[in-house]
């Protein structure tokens, strides 16, 4: 069942009306469908439109044209007052973690549950559970600024998952981490997917392609979707060489692979 659906989405930044010359295109006519429980890698060089696409899913930006459906709802037809409720169903993790630096991990995670208006006891219980799920000690009193990069990213993931969202978006989640911590975070994200949450990772880190088992890879270049592995038949176990795979697309990103068309 589709959980995320882009249909002819075009988006540009700058002054003036949509389509005018003063604006810079970030996404052009992007269409794809992602099924529930998928693990999606969104890739492409810097400036390809990956972050813009995630912002559109979070309704932080509005498309100039096209429709975006999350769980079968056209999110850009939502009233402004309904956007917070959409975001409670779409967890987000960022390269710079976006944590409150002076707050403890527990307080950071609790924030996402407090917005739901849950009773304090339930907030505490669920925040502790979310931190335990990402293998962090919920009792630590250290402020987030005193945590390592990997720990901070775990807190951010715990916060994003605390409210049981249907989709988890992660924008360059390994961008600030060394390879060992990156693998830990990727394992964690795969465990999240195994629990049924749809995971969408925007990345151009080759390690991600090597390490994770993606069910869909979307490749963006200059704002256009140039490859969508879900648009082709699922790769059979005995797939011939040359079939797009996570690793081949990662190679493409570094300029060595067969899909040179991304440029």
């Amino acid at each position, binding site marked *: 069942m589709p959980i995320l659906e882009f249909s002819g989405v075009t988006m540009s930044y700058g002054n003036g009306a949509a389509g005018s010359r003063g604006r810079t295109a970030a996404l052009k006519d992007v269409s794809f469908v992602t099924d529930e429980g998928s693990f999606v890698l969104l890739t492409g060089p810097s400036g390809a439109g990956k972050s813009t696409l995630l912002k559109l899913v*979070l*309704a*932080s930006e509005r498309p100039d044209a096209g429709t975006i459906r999350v769980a079968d709802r056209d999110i850009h037809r939502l009233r*402004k*007052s309904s*956007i*917070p*409720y*959409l*975001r*409670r169903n779409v967890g*987000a993790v960022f390269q710079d973690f*976006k*944590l*409150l630096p002076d707050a403890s991990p527990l307080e950071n995670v609790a*924030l*996402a549950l*407090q*917005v*739901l*208006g*849950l*009773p*304090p006891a339930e907030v505490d219980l669920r925040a502790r559970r979310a931190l335990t799920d990402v293998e962090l000690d919920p009792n630590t009193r250290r402020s987030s600024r005193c945590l390592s990069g990997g720990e901070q990213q775990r807190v951010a993931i715990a*916060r*994003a998952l605390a*409210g049981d969202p249907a989709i988890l978006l992660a924008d360059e989640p390994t961008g600030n981490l060394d390879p060992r911590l990156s693998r830990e975070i990727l394992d964690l994200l795969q465990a999240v997917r195994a629990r049924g949450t749809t995971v969408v990772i925007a990345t151009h880190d080759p390690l991600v392609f090597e390490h994770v088992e993606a069910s869909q890879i979307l490749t963006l270049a200059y704002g256009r979707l140039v490859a969508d592995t879900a648009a082709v038949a699922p790769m059979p176990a005995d797939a011939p060489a040359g079939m797009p795979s996570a690793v081949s697309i990662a190679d493409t990103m570094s300029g060595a692979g067969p899909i040179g068309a991304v440029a």
Partner: protein
Amino acid sequence: MRVLHSMRYVTQRGVRGMAQAPLVQLLAVATIAVCMLLLGCVLLVWQNARSIADRWGVDVPVTAYLVDDVPADRVAALVERIAALPQVERVDVITPELAMTRLVEGLGDDPTLVAGIDPSVLPTSLEVMMPPAEAATAETLAAELAAEPDVEDVVAAGTWVARAQALLETLRSIALGAAALVGFACLTIVWSTIRLAVYARRAEIQILRLVGGTPSFVHGPFVVEGFVQGALGAGLAVTLLYFGFDAVEPLLADAFALAFAAGGLRFLSPLECAAVVGFGAALGVLGSRAAVARYVET
């Protein structure tokens, strides 16, 4: 229940936010207190001036004292005749009993001075009310009333009433002007302070929006902050005003003993104090909402 829990979280975050910048909060509260003190002083002067005017009866342009034992039907006929005059707004009959009640009230702390006195020693009188514009013609009306056979004596405050009423009107205008100025000043102070707080906590705002905080949840703590600043500032002003009044009142009472013979100065009533604090709090809420409005855009 969820709303109550949300309000609790919002309040907690508001208080925590204030604790993060205590000096800024202190300065804002002190500045609001100074502004509200100005407003409180003007209110106090206006209120006491009005009260003194009431006690001295300057709101009654003409008082006609009747001869003894005028039958009720003749009093009623006289009242009807006077009330029909174009420059008259209203005529009140003050019976001896009512006059005695007023006298006792006017003596304030020492009503025993009139204990045992029969109210019948006081004459029945008619208080003739005139619109402020007609107050200057009180002397003419007084002369007309003096010609009535049942009227023994007439007292016309006349021009003095007009002057007193003009003074009260001026004081009222000053009070309103001060309220507007103070309101604007307080709004500006709260707006500036909250803008600083919003800037300092912009990361928190961004995070709250990303995790699905509604606009009221995101800007709520800042509104709490504005509310507390306004209410504390106004509360501090009322407290200072009270102690200032307490110190100055005996000096004024000695210096203007004649003016206060019919009753001393009085401080704002508890309800008026609450209204001043409420006004401060409302200004705080308005200022903070204006400051944070731009930042709660989704």
